[in-house]
């Protein structure tokens, strides 16, 4: 569809073509810049171009954001823009820094941004739970493992990445496709039949926790029980994995080939027999 347009008289067609396809051009440009930026800031052999990559990434984010409708209220808009930018930039930094400790800390910032987005959306419990569970528990566990592993300086495997020149453009194309389909299909879909009164009655109700708990423990009761069992299984599994590992002879220098501990034997009390 584009090719015949180009084949036609470009001189007379181009102004109207550019004007009518401004959105597609912006998205394509944003995807191109995003791919270039992601490739530049991912760990490579040379460190050159990282600042340029960051600037290009911010520009491409702006191009994507320009596609999207405003929320209507300038306060809502600015809050959302600040939170979303913080989240996405911190996530990008968490994926591209060389030192894993910095990655974990940037990831914590991305989690805080996500918690802010949850608050903004009227999901107070989820916002608090994200901070407590993710930033409070999971991330601290990550940092503990990092301390145990004690990465000294910049290891070789932190300074290179697998084939970033394939996956960065693929990711940018995926975001572009998502953007196009969102800005066309969701906008074309009829809005959900709801008024402010409906919202106040249900998802934005003043007694947020009471409503959420009511739904969680009536509609999703079996799922809650299964999730509790899953937590227990995860706990036991993690202990079993580490305990089985301790039985390896000379574990520091053991080759991976000798890493065939029979979990069932050790789990049956083989150590104490």
């Amino acid at each position, binding site marked *: 569809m584009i090719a015949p347009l180009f084949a036609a008289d470009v001189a007379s067609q181009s102004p109207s073509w550019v004007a009518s396809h401004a959105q597609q051009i912006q998205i394509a440009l944003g995807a191109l810049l995003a791919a270039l930026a992601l490739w530049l800031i991912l760990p490579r052999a040379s460190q050159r171009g990282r600042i340029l990559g960051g600037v290009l990434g911010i520009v491409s984010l702006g191009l994507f954001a320009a596609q999207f409708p405003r929320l209507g209220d300038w306060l809502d808009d600015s809050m959302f823009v600040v939170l979303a930018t913080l989240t996405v930039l911190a996530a990008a930094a968490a994926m591209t820094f060389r030192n894993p400790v910095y990655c974990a800390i940037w990831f914590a910032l991305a989690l805080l941004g996500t918690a802010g987005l949850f608050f903004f959306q009227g999901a107070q419990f989820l916002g608090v739970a994200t901070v407590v569970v993710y930033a409070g528990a999971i991330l601290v566990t990550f940092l503990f493992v990092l301390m145990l592993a004690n990465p000294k300086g910049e290891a070789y495997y932190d300074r290179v990445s697998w084939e970033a020149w394939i996956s960065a453009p693929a990711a940018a194309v995926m975001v572009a496709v998502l953007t196009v389909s969102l800005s066309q299909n969701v906008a074309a879909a009829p809005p959900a039949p709801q008024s402010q009164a409906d919202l106040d009655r249900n998802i934005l109700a003043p007694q947020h926790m009471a409503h959420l708990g009511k739904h969680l423990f009536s509609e999703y009761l079996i799922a809650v029980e299964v999730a509790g069992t899953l937590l227990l299984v995860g706990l036991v*599994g993690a202990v079993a994995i580490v305990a089985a590992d301790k039985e390896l002879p000379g574990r520091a220098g053991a080759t991976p080939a000798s890493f065939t501990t029979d979990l069932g034997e050790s789990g049956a009390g083989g150590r104490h027999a």
Partner: protein
Amino acid sequence: MPDETAVIAPVALLQNYLLVGGLLFVLGLVGFLCRRNMIIMFLAVELMLQGVSVSLVGWGRYHNDWGGQALTIFILTVAACEAAIALALIMTLYRASGKLDIAVWQQEREASQPAYVDQELPEPPPEVDKHWPQLTPSGIEPEIPASETIYRSHV
């Protein structure tokens, strides 16, 4: 004006949240595919889960339904379990190989697959000598066992 925002704003909010969720998911995907440090790979998985959670909460608000938030709570549960198991596995693999590099485990590949060979990299710039504060010694200096100097390089 109030009628207009009541109709337009939910769609705008949903679109914006879906874009942010998509960006987080894609960043996590790239991180998982590109990085070689196992800990960062699992941070990337958590980031993908966060992206899914953001879009779920957006859909829940749009449809005025609690299902999105309830499912996000279960995602949180699964993420906690996954982190526990993943960190136990990472510790096991780290003890077996002494590295957090995922490329160490390429010997588990199929026989028909070619091995990945590391390219030569220039040496990283040497660390600048840090000047640690020195206290005036007083009394007899205790002997530091040799085993302690291995992991306490700066003391």
